[in-house]
Each structure stands twice: as C-alpha cells, then as structure tokens.
C-alpha cells in the first residue's frame, strides 16, 4: 500500500513539474491571485512590493492619469503625495525598499515638469538626473529602488530616453 501511494505521489509530482515548469514558448503557469483596489477608486494599479508592503496609484475618473499614490501595509492605505505637486498629474509611487519609497511627481502649471522623488517616511526629496534636459516637461524620474540603489530614466539633449542607475552614491548612465 505504501509503495503504491509513493508511486502515485511521485508520478503526480513529475506531472506537476512537467506541466508547470516545462520550457516552452510563453506557456501559462499555475497561479492564484487577489484583487486589491484603493477604496472608492475607479482605477487602481500596484507598482512595487517589498517586505509585504505595496505601493501603487489610483484615480477616480478613468482619465488614466493616476495622480494619487498610496502605501498599503497589508491592513490599511496611507497617501503618498509630494507636497505642492500638480493636482491633476500628481504623484506616482513606483518602488519601495524598507521604509523608502521612490517615484515621480509633477510640478504645477505654468511650470509643469516631471521629477523623481524619494520619501523616507517623514520627508520628500527631489531626485533629478543632472543630465536631464529640463526643456522637456517629461524630463525623467525614479522608477525603482533597492536599498540605496535608485534606477530611472532621464531625457537627454537629443530628446532620447536614457537609463540611469545609482549604485550607492555613484551615478551611472
């Protein structure tokens, strides 16, 4: 009885591994999911996760601008909003690492510009790549964070998007 059970278990395991981890062109994978929408929002997007904490953004009118951002700690939502940001374009939190949150915000009219930011739980700091061309409103921002490493994009003098990485205090392009 034990050997039959062991055989059946091993056969099922091999089938599961074959079905789930087979190397084929974009096969589906078994997964489970739960929906997490910001209370009262029309649209919600989740952008980053670390330590079980999640950052994302939301909007109320299906404009796809997502001007409001949040931190979700597994139980409640906290607003993430760069002080003085444009009310329509607002703040978008993209990455989280420990207590640090990174993203972008927009300054209001008549000087509408995109900027990166870092939030440490108490205060907000603007993070702009020194090579960003401020001629363009969407001059770049911060999209990810891991420890003291930030990554993002800046628009160069030829209006091309470029990647930047900060490894500690070293900025790389």
């Amino acid at each position: 009885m034990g050997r039959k059970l062991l055989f059946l278990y091993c056969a099922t395991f091999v089938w599961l591994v074959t079905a789930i981890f087979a190397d084929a062109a974009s096969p589906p994978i078994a997964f489970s999911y739960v929906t997490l929408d910001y209370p009262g929002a029309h649209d919600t997007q989740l952008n980053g996760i670390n330590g079980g904490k999640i950052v994302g953004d939301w909007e109320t009118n299906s404009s796809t601008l997502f001007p409001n951002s949040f931190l979700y700690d597994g139980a409640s939502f906290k607003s993430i909003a760069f002080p003085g940001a444009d009310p329509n374009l607002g703040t978008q939190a993209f990455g989280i690492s420990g207590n640090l949150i990174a993203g972008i915000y927009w300054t209001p009219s008549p000087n509408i510009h995109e900027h990166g930011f870092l939030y440490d739980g108490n205060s907000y700091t603007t993070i702009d790549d020194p090579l960003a061309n401020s001629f363009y409103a969407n001059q770049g921002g911060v999209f990810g964070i891991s420890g003291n490493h930030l990554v993002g994009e800046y628009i160069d003098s030829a209006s091309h998007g470029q990647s930047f990485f900060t490894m500690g205090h070293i900025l790389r392009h």
Partner: protein
Amino acid sequence: LTPGPGSAALGVDGNKVVGYYAGGQFGYLYDGTNYTTIADPSGTHLNEAVGISGNDIVGDYQGISESALHGFLFDGTSYYTIDIPGSTQTSLRGIEGNSIVGWYLNGTGYHGVIITVPEPSTLALLTLGAVGLLAARRR
C-alpha cells in the same frame, strides 16, 4: 554602460537592474557587468522588464498585431505568460519572492492585483516531507 537611446531602468534588486531599450521593443537585464536582452518569445514589438527579485523578472509584452499587454514571469530559464482570467490586459510591475504585483484591465476599469506563483523549492520540500512521512509510516 548605457543600454542606449530609448531606454529606461524600471526595477532594481541589489546590483541587478531591469528595464527596456530601443524604445520599448526589448527588455534588458544588467547584472552589474553585462546586459542581457529580456523578451518573452511571444512579445513581438513591445517588451518591458519591470520588476526583479533574485533570478525572477516580471514585466509585460505585446504579441504580433496586438495593442493589449500580457504579463510575463521569467525565472532565469523559461518565460511564463500570466494573464488574469477575464481581463483584456495584464501588466506585472513588481515581484518579491513568489509574490507579484501589477494590474489588470477589464470592463469595469483597472484593478490592482497580487499574484502568488509556486516555487520549485516549495514543491521539492513538499515532496521530501511526503517521502519522509511515508518512510516513517513503514517502520
């Protein structure tokens, strides 16, 4: 070091960076030394590598003649498509361990989503546990 014009770095884990280049046609992984192209085999004209955790990378792609996004997981060896059932688009934006966050679009709008995928190590541990239990019962 640059992946070139039309690029953006979107995610980082330690010294590993993911993003896109060529205007979003291809995703990339930078491991601190070399660049590797990240592109789902089904992604023909748009591939974004957005989040990374260890060897696992998530993002989205568009297939041929498509404007809709599909989510993908790359475990360092294989690509897996992850589309939320009933959605018209899915995009995966961040990953930590076997937890993935992102969004999907359906008839009522955009919705945040937390996805859990199985880990090979989890299955292996379950197997070891079961074999151990069987061995104990036979004694």
